[in-house]
């Protein structure tokens, strides 16, 4: 069923399945809490911390439910028995110091009682010390970049972009099981290890969030924030950017694959091999058609969201590249805006994100695609020469 929840677990196995069911019954809203499409509660936790949060939320929900029932039982009693229409005469009282002190003191005691578990869960949540590996996540409009900072995979880095096809979003194709919650390269972490996440962003504030881990932290441009998780169960866990970051805020999911130690080691080896194989020879001289093929891929991943696959853009915020003055003008200015961005707009500096070859390829592609048939070729060496200028 396409509407299965993100986590591999099944609601009926939840330690609180019964509580959820009872609550739903009491509220008289829906009887079928086990159906994932009618999910009534937090996602199933897969870290010890997320379980504490889950339990704390359950406790609080019961507390407020009981308070609500208590208060409105009194109101209901009044509505039924103290009506004018059945001839009830109004009493004449308007103060009672003892009662007023009681309903100030009792809520205070309830609040103090729930402050204890709330405090200890929070203190645990912020303890990022003694992690087994550190990964830096960088928010871009609108994708995540991951870089393994410590551990076996140190040095591995890649971009993680939404992989749901455009046709599904535009309702031209049936939606897949993980519609909008799937990426080309998920983050891969070993099970049972304490993973410390460092978060930052390059353009606007994003937020890295995985509900099953109870992790949600802003990625603020120019600053580093940290958070952590220790996933207890293998599986694929999905979240989304949780801070409005512009046009495609709804289209930059977070996907984390938790794998066994062996699988993780194999993945790391594979990544390192792939990185070595993919490393472009910076001195290579490219031919136009192979460069354009590469450039189209880079364009689709990095540029098409704003400037559109047709190059028509979404003016005036996202200008057209087809027929653009910059694109059809001198290539130095074109390379400059791609590498350095345009401050005060959504145009990000891609110099740090993309390799020399990718920048050369995408700029060449833009100068040759659509009606911009300049026939011009740009070599990675030219990009390299511009770096640091």
């Amino acid at each position, binding site marked *: 069923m396409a*509407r299965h*929840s993100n986590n591999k677990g099944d609601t009926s196995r939840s330690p609180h399945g019964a509580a959820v069911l009872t609550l739903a019954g009491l509220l008289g809203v829906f009887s079928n809490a086990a159906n994932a*499409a*009618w*999910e*009534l*509660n*937090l996602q199933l936790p897969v870290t010890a911390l997320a379980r504490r*949060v889950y339990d704390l939320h359950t406790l*609080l929900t019961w507390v407020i439910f009981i308070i609500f029932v208590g*208060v*409105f039982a*009194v109101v209901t009693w*009044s509505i039924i028995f*103290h*009506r004018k229409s059945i001839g*009830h*005469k*109004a*009493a*004449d*009282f*308007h*103060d*009672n110091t003892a*009662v*007023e002190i009681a*309903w*100030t003191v009792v*809520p*205070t005691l309830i*609040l103090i009682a*729930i*402050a204890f578990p*709330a405090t200890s869960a*929070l*203190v645990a*949540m912020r303890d990022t010390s003694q992690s087994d590996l550190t990964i830096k996540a960088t928010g871009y409009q609108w994708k995540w970049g991951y870089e393994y900072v410590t551990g076996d995979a140190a040095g591995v880095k890649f971009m993680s972009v939404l992989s749901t096809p455009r046709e599904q*979003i535009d*309702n031209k194709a049936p*939606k897949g099981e993980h519609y*909008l919650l799937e990426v080309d390269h998920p983050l891969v972490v070993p099970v049972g290890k304490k993973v410390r996440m460092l978060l930052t962003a390059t*353009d*606007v*504030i994003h937020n890295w969030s995985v*509900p099953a881990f*109870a992790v*949600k932290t802003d990625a*603020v441009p*120019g*600053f580093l924030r940290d958070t952590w998780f220790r996933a207890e169960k293998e599986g694929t866990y999905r*979240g989304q950017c949780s*801070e*409005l970051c*512009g*046009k495609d*805020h709804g289209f930059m999911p977070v996907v984390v694959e938790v794998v066994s130690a062996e699988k993780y080691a194999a993945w790391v080896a594979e990544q390192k091999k792939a990185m070595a194989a993919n490393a472009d020879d910076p001195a290579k001289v490219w031919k136009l058609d192979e460069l354009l093929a590469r450039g189209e891929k880079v364009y689709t991943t990095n540029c098409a969201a704003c400037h559109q696959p047709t190059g028509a853009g979404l003016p*005036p*915020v996202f200008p057209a590249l087809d027929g653009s003055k910059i694109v059809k003008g001198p290539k130095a200015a074109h390379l400059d805006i791609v590498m350095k961005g345009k401050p*005060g707009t959504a145009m990000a500096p891609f110099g740090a994100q993309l390799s020399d070859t990718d920048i050369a390829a995408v700029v060449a592609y833009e100068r040759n695609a659509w009606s911009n048939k300049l026939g011009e070729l740009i070599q990675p060496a030219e990009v390299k020469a511009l770096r640091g200028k």
Partner: protein
Amino acid sequence: MQAAQHAGDAGHHADDSHGHGPTGIMRWITTTNHKDIGTMYLWFSFAMFLVGGAMSLVIRAELMSPGLQYVAPEFYNQMLTLHALIMVFGAIMPAFVGFANWMIPLMIGAPDMAFARMNNWSFWLLPPAAILLTTSLFVPGGAAGTGWTLYPPLSVQMGIGMDMAIFAVHILGMSSIMGSINIITTILNMRTPGMTLMKMPLFCWTWLVTAFLLIASMPILAGAVTMLLTDRHFGTSFFNAAGGGDPVLFQHIFWFFGHPEVYIIALPAFGVVSHVIPAFSRKHLFGYTSMVYAIAAIGLISFFVWAHHMYVTGIPLTGQLYFMYATMLIAIPTGVKVFNWVTTMWRGSLSFETPMLFALGFLVLFTIGGLTGLVLAMTAVDIQLQDTYYVVAHFHYVMVAGALFSAYAGLYYWLPKWTGHMYHEGLGKLHFWLSMIFFNIAFFPQHFLGLAGMPRRIPDYAQQFADFNMISSFGSFGFGFSQLLVLVVVFKAMKGGVKAEARPWDGARGLEWTVPSPAPHHTFEDPPKFDPAEAHG
């Protein structure tokens, strides 16, 4: 009775005003009469309510099913931004200023507001602000698409629509500050002899505290958006790390305004309900003194809890703990208020005319919103729920069911005083029940969406969220169209109907009921004698 001298004017509202100055449109542009200005505030706010409501229906239409159907994501962002700005600054705040203008002089026995000409200006600043906000949709790049919180650096990326929003906020702030100065001065200086502060109607108390909150917080918002403006155009780097600034600084400043703003909206709503519930319970308000202290405490604490909107921004652990405890503290005075209303009803002689129904609706739904607020106060839980639909549900229970339902309670309660006719009770009750049912269909399922992890401010969503979104959209369309009933009710009451007595509600207390219905154009030119039996507590 002072009002007796005006008895001959009763029912000749229009004639009464003609003798005093310009007629036609100029009467409204130049008026300094608190009743005229109150009426204009109320109509303005209802017009803005319809505009903001139409925007929310665009949002709910897009969210009815997964996939992009009707609007592009960037336009969706503009809709949610303007919906919030217009509802907060254009609909809810002016509605309660309208009540304040109409009712405060009548409640305290004053002939008008203290600064009658400034009163005119503070109203007429609103339409330009509304025009700036709504027409920003049509400028290149469209309106601000940042959410009403206007967080940089995203807001620095926006087009000229953002500048229009900033100037609109400046103008609205000026209007609010002038209105507040007026209200404070009126309440403190123009009460009829014998009406001490602790005998003053509770609505005046809530507005007195609200006006101080406004004066203290609106300049902060104005400062924040001005810094944004200079970051955008004059090369400053308040919110840009590359220039030594910090994007999170904006959030601190914004929420230092933004949290008191919540109570700026909620407190006058508390005030209205504190009049309606005793009237239809035919009892005195229970615990008047503790109500006043609770209002003052809420107003004060509201300045010390701002960063509970920022638990995920990376503020230090000690900061999170402090803001968690401070936020929990607000639950105590708020609880006191709810208990007082409940006890006011206890052993009363209850009847359920439309104002009472809306007050009860307020009580139930505002309590739900307050209780989910307690859940959100717990930092560890909030981190799961921040920026999800749980928060959207929470603040709509507080803002719509709290402020709007209370405004309706006040509208139905005082409409006979304003128009001189009783409204159509059947239509009023229909309006209440449709609002109550559709509101819950629209917003209750959003709690579940948020728990399951659906982020807010997204135009499209994963498939497991489809069913509750469909229900929510259905409810919001029902809620939206039910609100048109108010227009019918108000027009009918303006045109005619059963003539209202000076005191149409047998349990109502207060000086406003000692003048005829409709209230003559000028009332209390001489201070009335204050009868302690009319006192609130």
